[in-house]
């Protein structure tokens, strides 16, 4: 019996020491990540919204009788369905959600490059858009009407700032810092980052050339500034323009 136990233990040790394959599939991982995060399925189902609105089911059971839960559920469902069906923001929310998922799925280098090109962190801004109560879509004509001088290209302006000194918007990220917009891109230095920068720039240039097919979002950010985002056909933000409360406008650098 004792011998049997020793054998068993040694055998277990052998299994524990078995050399295991450590195989990685980064391309599959990346594809799956993109698919999951940008798929419309990621959007909340009505049932899920209701569940979240109700909070944790087990804690609800402790404080509210079952009948009340059922009543709340029915009312919430009716209100939820009605609200979802009539909301004018649905389209803007969907565009924002898809764009945020696309940005989130970008590799780190592409993400840094996009941030540098747009002179703002698109993920932060899209999250602000998601939470904005006045999020809406604009048509191409409305967008152009808003920016008649320069359309979608560099929305830079040179204007006296409150301190009286001339503020040249060179889109290096410094303006974003000085205006308290905490979305400053990090410097692009490595060869891989430069390569990513070139790729993203080229991609955005193609999208901007066909701007009429882009989608335009507008909302007021937590600082009270009007923000307009152009979103390309592949859900990538291709332009971010922020109208500051002091009249300045900032946006991405001309390509």
């Amino acid at each position: 019996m004792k011998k049997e136990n020793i054998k068993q233990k040694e055998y277990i040790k052998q299994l524990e020491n078995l050399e295991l394959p450590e195989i990685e599939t980064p391309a599959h991982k990346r594809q799956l990540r993109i698919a999951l995060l940008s798929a419309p399925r990621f959007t909340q189902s009505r049932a899920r919204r209701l569940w979240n609105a109700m909070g944790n089911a087990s804690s609800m059971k402790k404080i509210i009788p079952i009948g009340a839960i059922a009543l709340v559920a029915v009312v919430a469902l009716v209100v939820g369905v009605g609200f979802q069906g009539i909301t004018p923001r649905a389209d803007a929310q969907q565009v924002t959600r898809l764009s945020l998922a696309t940005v989130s799925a970008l590799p780190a280098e592409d993400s840094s490059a996009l941030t540098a090109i747009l002179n703002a962190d698109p993920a932060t801004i899209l999250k602000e858009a998601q939470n904005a109560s006045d999020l809406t879509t604009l048509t191409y004509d409305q967008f152009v009407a808003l920016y008649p001088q320069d359309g979608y290209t560099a929305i830079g302006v040179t204007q006296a700032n409150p301190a009286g000194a001339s503020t040249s918007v060179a889109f290096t990220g410094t303006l974003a810092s000085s205006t308290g917009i905490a979305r400053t891109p990090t410097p692009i230095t490595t060869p891989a980052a430069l390569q990513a920068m070139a790729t993203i720039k080229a991609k955005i240039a193609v999208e901007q050339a066909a701007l009429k097919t882009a989608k335009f979002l507008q909302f007021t950010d937590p600082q009270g500034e009007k923000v307009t985002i152009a979103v390309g056909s592949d859900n990538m933000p291709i332009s971010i323009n922020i109208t500051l409360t002091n009249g300045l406008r900032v946006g991405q650098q001309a390509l």
Partner: protein
Amino acid sequence: MDLQREKELVERARGDDPDAFGALFDEYYQKIFGYILKRTGVVAVAEDIVSEVFYKAQKGLWRFAWQNVPFSAWLYRIATNEINGYFRKGTFRRSVSLDALIEGSDFEVADANDLIHELEHAERELEQHALFLAVRKEIAKLPEKYQEVVALRFFENKKVGDIAVILNKKEGTIKSLLSRAVEQLRNSFSDRPASEQTQMQPFYSSSVMDGERSL
């Protein structure tokens, strides 16, 4: 990832935050893929099943109630169920394909050749682990309940308590299953024909097998 951080991410992911789900995905993709691969021994099947696992996790996240059961344990549980389904049917039928997910997402698909080359490379790499594959083959002959505990214990290095959480069983049950599984596995090795013993030399040349012969 500590439990508090994981809990925060799960809550955010449930609240429709793709970043949070992305962080959970990044944390656990490799672990879950590795587990499935070690159970099935086929890279293509592992890729399919891991896609299904994360798809189901994403779809069912709103139902996931945090009761001190880590998200990772939940993923392992989904993966275990999918693997068991694969072994029962002898094939894996996806409820969703990666292609369909990408198609529905309006997202530009990257070069499909990358995926094919990666798959081929991974299959070749797996073939290098002959001893592991031989042991895995023996494990795959065990009843499902034994396969689960052996794989989680020896392939994933999980503690008995963790396995109990993943499989939703008592620790005592897991210990008992492990003991019987190892015993069966040991017997299956001793029954292998001599021609196969070279491939599995470490298991045969050990003091265990020597000891057995000397009995």
